[in-house]
């Protein structure tokens, strides 16, 4: 077994990407994802890879689009304001069915916002973000270990479904140091990608990477085909952790740093005689709808714990299908809910409040 090393979350993503065969990284400086780019800048030149500090996030994502078109594994990372700038390119990646991995180490917004951790880009990440009908596969790590593990998974899922994937982390995850077992080194060789632009060598008709379809019926067909893939992803790739949910009367839904605080709260609540549990989405698109729907049939109420003004709660409510009340317990702007806030929220529900 490989040994544990102590690493920052941002660095764990970078090293895991390299070990997953990614040799191309493009980015533009922004807090709090700085260490990721710095790590790539140090490592890539030593292993024959490319690190390029682009002139903007717009340029960076379009460099990603170029590399992805050649079929090679490629990553970019940023934080909220920068990810907003990438949305045009992300929509083009989705429209051209190109696999790539985008990391968002979220900070508080809107606008320039702040530099403290946040989850307020949930809507942007899970509902499209850019223009047009599309989704990303969105993975939400809650530890440095998962920062590494989900990065490898993101590359694999992106390649398998030809859908760009996003690691939706936050400033805490990026900055925190934890022991991590890094994934083994994998071959950077391109999986079979007959659609890639690599030069025809005068041996095949030309390949075209494109998202333009002026005939509406043809464009609709491409959307239908892509949504068939999305349906398969929804059926097969939703991931979550259920913790203390078997006998839970109160269910908390939380991901990333919020889930870690929520686990602490669940432990305290159980000590106080309130049976609480946690559903932790590991993918937020696809959202673990079945897990939440199932739990809602058994619990008295669900609580969505978030670092936002309440975004994921909409998916929790949809999944609840009216079977149980759903309440929000959140902080925003870079503030992190304390266990005490969550405990108070569940205790209020237990006393019949809202």
């Amino acid at each position, binding site marked *: 077994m490989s040994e544990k090393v102590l690493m920052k979350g941002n660095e764990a993503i970078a090293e895991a990407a390299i070990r997953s065969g990614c040799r*191309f990284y*493009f980015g533009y400086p922004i807090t709090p994802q700085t260490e990721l780019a710095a790590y790539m800048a140090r490592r890539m030149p030593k292993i024959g890879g*490319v690190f*390029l500090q*682009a*002139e*903007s996030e*717009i*340029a*960076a994502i*379009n*460099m*990603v*689009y*170029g*590399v*992805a*078109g*050649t079929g*090679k594994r*490629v990553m970019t990372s940023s934080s909220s304001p920068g990810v907003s700038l990438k949305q*045009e*390119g992300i929509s*083009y990646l989705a429209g*051209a069915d190109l696999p790539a991995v985008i990391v968002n180490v979220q900070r508080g917004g809107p606008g320039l916002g702040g530099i403290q951790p946040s989850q307020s880009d949930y809507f942007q990440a899970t509902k499209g973000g850019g223009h047009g009908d599309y989704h990303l596969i969105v993975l939400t790590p809650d530890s440095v270990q998962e920062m590494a593990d989900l990065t490898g998974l993101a590359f694999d899922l992106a390649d398998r479904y030809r859908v760009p994937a996003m690691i939706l982390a936050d400033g805490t995850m990026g900055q925190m140091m934890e022991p991590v077992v890094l994934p083994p080194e994998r071959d950077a060789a391109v999986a079979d990608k007959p659609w890639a*632009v*690599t*030069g*025809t*060598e*005068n*041996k095949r008709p*030309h*390949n*075209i*990477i*494109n*998202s*333009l379809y002026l005939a509406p019926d043809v464009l609709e067909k491409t959307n239908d085909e892509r949504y068939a893939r999305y349906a398969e992803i929804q059926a097969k790739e939703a991931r979550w952790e259920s913790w203390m949910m078997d006998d839970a009367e109160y269910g908390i839904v939380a991901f990333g740093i919020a889930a870690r605080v929520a686990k602490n709260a669940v432990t305290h609540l159980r000590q106080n005689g309130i049976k609480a549990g946690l559903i932790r989405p590991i993918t937020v698109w696809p959202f673990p709808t079945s897990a939440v729907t199932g739990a809602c049939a058994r619990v008295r109420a669900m609580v969505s714990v978030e670092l936002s003004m309440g975004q994921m709660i909409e998916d929790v409510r949809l999944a609840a299908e009216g079977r149980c009340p759903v309440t929000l317990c959140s902080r925003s702007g870079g503030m992190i809910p304390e266990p005490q806030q969550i405990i108070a929220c569940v205790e209020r529900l237990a006393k019949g409040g809202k």
Partner: protein
Amino acid sequence: MAVVFSKPKSLTDREFHYCPGCPHGIIHRLVAQAIDNLGIEGRTIGIAPVGCAVMAYDYFACDMVEAAHGRAPAVATGIKRALPDRIVFTYQGDGDLASIGMAETVHSAARGENITIIFVNNAIYGMTGGQMAPTSLPGQVTQTSPYGRDVATQGYPIRICELLSSLDGPHFIARVAVNNVKNVNQAAKTIEKAFRNQVEGKGFSLVEVVSACPTNWGMTPSKALAWVSERMIPYYPLGVFKDADEKEDRA
């Protein structure tokens, strides 16, 4: 019977959608001829812009990528970095290259990316129906400068070759035109050189082609060509603005 004129191999059989008298067709042919002459079709990857030439991906027989508006040099950077032994070119209009994509243009040039850019300057936004471009001339009437481009409020045209040749990054910067046979022949040579530079690993090469848009200039094709010589070329002088080869020769 001797064949005296044939289509370059690097063009597909697709019929161009360009307006009658539009120089885009000539410029496509010159690019394809350069690729043919250098024998690089099988290892060339082209990037189409957003603009009238958006469907260039159907016309060039090499592998093609359609980029977002103005982003072609960034896309080309990604492709060239991933496949350094491939020949990567972009084909862009003035709105694409000199307005929305200015940052990508300047920075790919400053980095000296070993790519070839064919920049078609027709002083107007053709595809969207004739709006003012960053290269529209002072006084030029367009849909969005209906009283003529007023430099006091709408600024001055941008001369891309002059701007880029102030940078250390580019290897070769030249401006050509396709308004008469002599200029077309010169353009053919210059475009081929811009591709050969890349084959030889010399670095960033950009050829600005002073073009025309008879449709949105509201002129017949022959009047449009006259306007190129009378108005465009005096503002956008033809020639080589930077050639690092010559600098080396002199040194």
